[in-house]
């Protein structure tokens, strides 16, 4: 069953198309926006800007470190460069440059990493973006956005370009179902409640938001009402929304397409532990590199399916009731 089907979401669309539209819209809104491409512009959506504004598009070639440095120079002169590549190549090839050339001075550079998580499944683990959120989040001034559907992809790219400071926006190779209607509003740092509930809260980002909605549909059949939060801004986290979830539902399950060590779930757990401790489960990629497989198979291997999430929620509700 495709992701989002249980929850009745509209069928999936390619995120790259919406990322491209978002970049184009940002470029139309602000003449300072320029796009740098790591020779993947037809895969990331960057070619949308190349077509409309050829003078504001630069293919840097297959040289991510150089791309990040050039972005730092452009930002130093008042431009807003969007650096585009696969999330894995951006963060693994050019982390030192992201840290030193960009982050130390808090430069206004946007990193747009596509094909993240295990969405490149059959290409194998080498190009999977399974540590990109951890790496980006570790840099002090970085804002990290993980859109969960086509509309949020487009809107968060535009929001990232309007935000002053370095931002990582994470995209996926996999098409994702529509969680949102066109009129949805986003505020960086403010989680969206995409389903109301009082028994348990499922917090997802990216792919794991529609998965959480599917899990909520499963739980609803059993009489468990799950709240679902789209934590599209994974740094800085929406502490108020997390505290409200802990206080009002008494149990939290997180899900992410990322390694569990230092990932979103562990950061949410820190907030919960420090503010309003409640039982939690963190669903993430265990400390094993995923196998070459379809993304659906990898989700099964990593325990990230809607059934897994529903199962974790069910356990927590039992714990909560026994207490």
């Amino acid at each position: 069953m495709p992701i989002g089907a249980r929850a009745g979401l509209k069928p999936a669309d390619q995120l790259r198309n919406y990322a491209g539209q978002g970049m184009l819209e940002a470029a139309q809104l602000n003449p300072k926006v320029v796009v740098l491409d790591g020779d993947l512009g037809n895969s990331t959506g960057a070619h949308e800007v190349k077509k409309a504004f050829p003078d504001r598009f630069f293919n840097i070639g297959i040289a991510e470190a150089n791309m990040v440095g050039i972005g730092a120079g452009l930002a130093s002169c008042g431009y807003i460069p969007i650096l585009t590549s696969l999330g894995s190549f951006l963060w693994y090839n050019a982390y030192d440059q992201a840290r030193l050339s960009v982050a130390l001075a808090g430069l206004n550079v946007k990193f747009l990493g596509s094909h993240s998580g295990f969405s490149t499944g059959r290409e194998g683990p080498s190009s999977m973006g399974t540590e990109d959120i951890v790496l980006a989040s570790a840099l002090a001034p970085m804002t990290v956005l993980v859109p969960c559907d086509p509309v949020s992809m487009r809107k968060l790219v535009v929001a990232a370009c309007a935000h002053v400071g370095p931002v990582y926006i994470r995209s996926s190779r996999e098409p994702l179902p529509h969680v949102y209607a066109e009129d949805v509003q986003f505020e960086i740092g403010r989680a969206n409640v995409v389903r109301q509930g009082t028994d348990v809260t499922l917090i997802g980002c990216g792919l794991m938001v529609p998965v959480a909605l599917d899990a909520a549909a499963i739980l609803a059949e059993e009489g468990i009402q799950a709240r679902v939060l789209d934590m599209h801004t994974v740094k800085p986290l929406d502490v108020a929304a997390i505290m409200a979830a802990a206080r009002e539902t008494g149990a939290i399950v997180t899900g992410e397409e990322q390694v569990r060590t230092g990932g979103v779930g562990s950061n949410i757990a820190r907030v919960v532990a420090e503010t309003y401790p409640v039982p939690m489960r963190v669903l993430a990629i265990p400390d094993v590199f995923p196998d070459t497989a379809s993304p659906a198979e990898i989700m099964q291997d990593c325990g990230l399916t809607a059934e897994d999430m529903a199962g974790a929620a069910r356990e927590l509700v039992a714990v909560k009731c026994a207490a």
Partner: protein
Amino acid sequence: MSDIASLRELARQLRLDVLDITAGPGGHVSSAFSAVEILTAMYFGGVMRYKPEEPNWPERDRFLLSKGHAAPLYYPVLARAGYVPLEKIKSFRQRGSGLHGHPIQGSFPGVESSSGSLGQGLSIGLGHVLAGRLSGLSYRVNVLLGDGECEEGQIWEAAMAAAHWKADNLLAVVDHNKYQQTGPIAREMSLAPFAEKWRAFGWEVAECDGHDIADILAKVQAMQQVTGKPQVIIAHTVKGKGVSFIEKDFSFHGRSLSPEQDAQAREEIRCQ
């Protein structure tokens, strides 16, 4: 100030500045000394337009220090150029001073880029070149590289791209002092044939005596006339230049001088 004698006097003073500010907190004295005449020529030789009272003047010529370990030279140069009062540089490496051990953009006026991990300045300079094109500004971009730094792959990514984009307002100056931290470059990781590498990447290449200010200025002025390709000046220098016992011992890289060595170094510099 542009006559050579006064520039040489300034260079002598800058070496004393380096000793002054590193005496307590330490710093890379020998790597600073090899670049003294290069920075003197660039900042005080009339080859760059800049306004210390307006550090972010959009039309300024850029100078990016990619070999950030020359920080104890860079701050005195910026101070003597007028970016801050000379008094300010005494707080080198002190908490809250903004004079980081390796310069950080935004922390000190005139610092165009962050450094401290080698290999990054040329790419950042290239970003300034592209920004100039987008803005229709005609400034030049100058980047100081270390020679050991040229072992970093990113330098050659940037070199390739600069030639591809015919970045003829980009000048790299390599402080070719022939040593990296653990020994002679020729022994540890040879760059040879160094000039030929740059030429093969599509750059105009000149070489000069990196301690002869007149020679440096002549080469910079010649390079500023080149069209259609980026330029590099390989400035042959001596690590620790100006102090005999530092010149003879590469192990001074990043090592502080003892009080006795400091006194001897000052004596030698004063007598030059």
